[in-house]
């Protein structure tokens, strides 16, 4: 019977309802599932994926972002990423896991409950599908770590550290927890059959939109856009990007919650999209400026990875290939538009790369999931059109909620502690003024 349920879950993956199903298990399992046989193989893979996704933030994203700023601010960026990781972990334990995946009772369409406060009731034997619930808890936690850390790219080189801590913590509760619940925790979007295999909506759209809001409210860096110095260490950027790439195997293939064909295909399309987007970005730079750059190449990588993320469990190799090309072209264009048309100093292009990439993938999956495009097949009950409608609704609502909530949070925090350091501190650099350290003493 259990096996039959598992197979049902597995087959529903292809129907695009996987997360509904898993969310169901996540909630229902611990109460009833002492009889679900633990799969050592799947558990091994999800623990490995957990390590890989943590590695994406620490040190992957930290180095990726740290290399893009000036030498006088490199440590502050590493500090932001690390402190956010710690804070998110503790909040996840205390309440955010429960709000995202707990039992929300009558509010269950909108938010989980507090029944799993401090993992209460979860023991060594609690199961979530055929893996231990602790492993599911940890795997999901790594997503809650990287999402607020992605926003760091919007506010580097000028934000107060106390504002980073307050905003990231509050944002997790007010934005991440509910959106995660809607999509993966059995909430209203899950009920509509929304497709978000590994976080195009939950991670990239939320972070990307919030990044745009914080960049706007904080204001541009001194000298933006003409007198900003270039990335102080493209090699560090590439190192971080490479770690993100490798870690993303855990992010996307781990989201199958099993070591099986679904995970294997997710890994394949993820990799193909990353490679294709990188080459696309490189080609654009080569044609336009005559010189392809390392920073450009790996920015393409990240764009390709963000874009495939929501689609990675639904599309086939050709879908991955086409998503990669789209990611390269669209994200490249958006970087220019945000910086030069909108004149917003979203400093490390969080919105243009993650927000736009995540939204793009979330929309295009409605088509590329179809077998006509080599996809793994839409559910029998939906068409490309109706699926697109659901995806579009999800993008709009999630973007709106992320924007509004971030705006309100930032207003409050600005009033409380102030968002921005003073001018002298900004010019001297956050490393020495906020943390009392210097990046390089060589």
């Amino acid at each position, binding site marked *: 019977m259990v096996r039959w349920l598992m197979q049902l879950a597995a087959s529903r993956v292809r129907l695009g309802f996987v997360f509904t199903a898993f969310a169901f298990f996540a909630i229902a399992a611990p109460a009833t599932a002492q009889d679900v046989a633990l799969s050592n193989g799947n558990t091994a893979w999800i623990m490995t994926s957990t390590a890989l996704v943590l590695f994406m933030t620490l040190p992957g994203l930290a180095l990726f972002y740290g290399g893009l700023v000036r030498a006088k601010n490199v440590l502050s960026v590493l500090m932001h990423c690390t402190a956010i990781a710690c804070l998110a972990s503790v909040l996840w334990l205390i309440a955010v896991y429960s709000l995202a995946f707990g039992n929300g009772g009558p509010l269950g369409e909108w938010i989980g409950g507090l029944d799993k406060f401090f993992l209460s009731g979860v023991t060594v034997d609690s199961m979530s599908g055929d893996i231990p619930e602790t492993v599911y808890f940890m795997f999901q936690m790594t997503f809650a770590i990287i999402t607020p850390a992605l926003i760091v790219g919007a506010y580097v080189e000028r934000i107060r550290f106390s504002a980073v801590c307050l905003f990231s913590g509050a944002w997790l509760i007010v934005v991440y927890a509910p959106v995660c619940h809607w999509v993966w925790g059995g909430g209203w979007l899950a009920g509509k059959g929304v497709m978000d295999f590994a976080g195009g909506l939950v991670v990239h759209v939320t972070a990307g939109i919030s990044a745009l809001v914080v960049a706007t409210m904080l204001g541009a860096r001194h000298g933006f*856009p*003409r*007198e*900003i*110095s*270039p*990335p102080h260490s493209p090699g560090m950027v590439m190192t971080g990007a490479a770690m993100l790439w490798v870690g993303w195997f855990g992010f996307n293939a781990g989201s199958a919650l099993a070591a099986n064909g679904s995970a294997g295909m997710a890994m394949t399309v993820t990799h193909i999209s990353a490679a294709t987007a990188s080459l696309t970005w490189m080609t654009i*730079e080569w044609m*336009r*400026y005559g*010189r392809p*750059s390392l*920073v*450009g190449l790996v*920015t393409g990588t990240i764009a390709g990875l963000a874009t495939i993320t929501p689609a990675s469990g639904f599309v086939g190799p050709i879908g991955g290939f086409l998503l990669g090309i789209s990611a390269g072209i669209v994200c*490249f264009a958006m*970087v*220019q538009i945000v*910086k*030069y048309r909108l004149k917003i100093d979203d400093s490390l*292009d969080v919105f243009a790369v993650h927000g736009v990439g995540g939204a793009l993938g979330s929309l295009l999956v409605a088509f590329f999931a179809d077998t006509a495009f080599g996809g793994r097949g839409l559910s029998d009950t939906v068409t490309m059109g109706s699926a697109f409608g659901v995806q579009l609704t999800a993008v709009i609502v999630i973007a709106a909620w992320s924007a509004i909530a971030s705006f309100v949070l930032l207003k409050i925090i600005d009033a409380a502690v102030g968002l921005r350091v003073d001018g002298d501190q900004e010019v001297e650099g956050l490393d020495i003024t906020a943390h009392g350290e210097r990046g390089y003493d060589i």
Partner: protein
Amino acid sequence: MKLVIAIIKPFKLDEVRDALTKLGVEGMTVTEVKGFGRQKGQKEIYRGAEYNVVFVPKIKLEIAADDTLADRVVEAIQHAASTGQIGDGKIFVTDIVQAVRIRTGETGSDAL
């Protein structure tokens, strides 16, 4: 005695050193510096965005030389470091009132 200070393009260092060695110059001191001048900084492009790199990497050479040698040093550097393109750099000459070799305590020309 003179101190010849030359600001040159980094990739000209080897040629200049060779030229000076041929003149009999036995020592020099090299510093990595950043120059600001007519050469308005390379435009570096990151993610499609142009950055004006105001300061250009340069090499500063300092060579102490006898008055007689100094002129030839200036000339040799000017020839070896020139590419004819903007940003080739400058040579400044100042007076040295005393020179000492730390190892031996020798002074004047003997110190070089």
